[in-house]
């Protein structure tokens, strides 16, 4: 394992610890309630048309 890998692994350990704390779990659940709907909404036709028109240029 290189020094860079060790640093990366330690940073991600801290991230996991924070997310697994009671507040982290509550926060994650709340953020999902606020943002998941937006991610799952259908893409507006106008936007898809814009992309397809550019593809067919």
């Amino acid at each position: 394992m290189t020094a860079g890998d060790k640093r990366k692994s330690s940073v991600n350990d801290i991230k996991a610890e924070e997310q697994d704390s009671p507040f982290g779990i509550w926060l994650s659940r709340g953020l999902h309630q606020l943002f998941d709907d937006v991610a799952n909404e259908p893409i507006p036709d106008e936007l898809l048309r814009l992309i397809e028109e550019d593809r067919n240029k």
Partner: protein
Amino acid sequence: MTFHDQVIAILPKLRVQALSLTRNRAAAEDLVQDAVCNALAAQNSFIPGTNFSAWMHRILRNRFISDLRKRRETTDIDDVPAASFASPATHEDSLALKDLSMALSRLPSDQREALVMVVIQGMSYEELAEATDCAVGTAKSRVFRARRQLEAWMSGDLPTNDKLRVKVKALRDAMDARRRAGHSSEDLMLS
């Protein structure tokens, strides 16, 4: 996957990023559309095989910053109502969700964006740094500060950047002190 397929595939993630930055669904939709237009116009500058996701997130972020600068020339952004993360309240803990939504809207946009991209999109700090064009340490610090600040606010601390509430609290304290000392507090209201 073609360039255009990649653009379509990343749209849900761009929406989440856009909402985290703008705090408003309608503004987020506009931002995504503008970012897609910018990306289509700049598609020749994308190098195939490099990180498309980070490239696209950076375009959206740069567009947000550029729009913000233009708007600041004509309006005070703090006057814009911090509208609507929340869906209609159907959850039993909708009050806590509303509080979280309000607390989120008080965070600086870069911290809010960082937190959402890590928690909702599951990005690592390295991916977040690449997508937001900053050092890994900065990305990590933004997420850490966002968490700590939210935790403090949600446990009842007064937001330090909420100028109105801070002013009201200071005024109340001063009025209480004057009353306790037997003075009128009306002149404080006029100062």
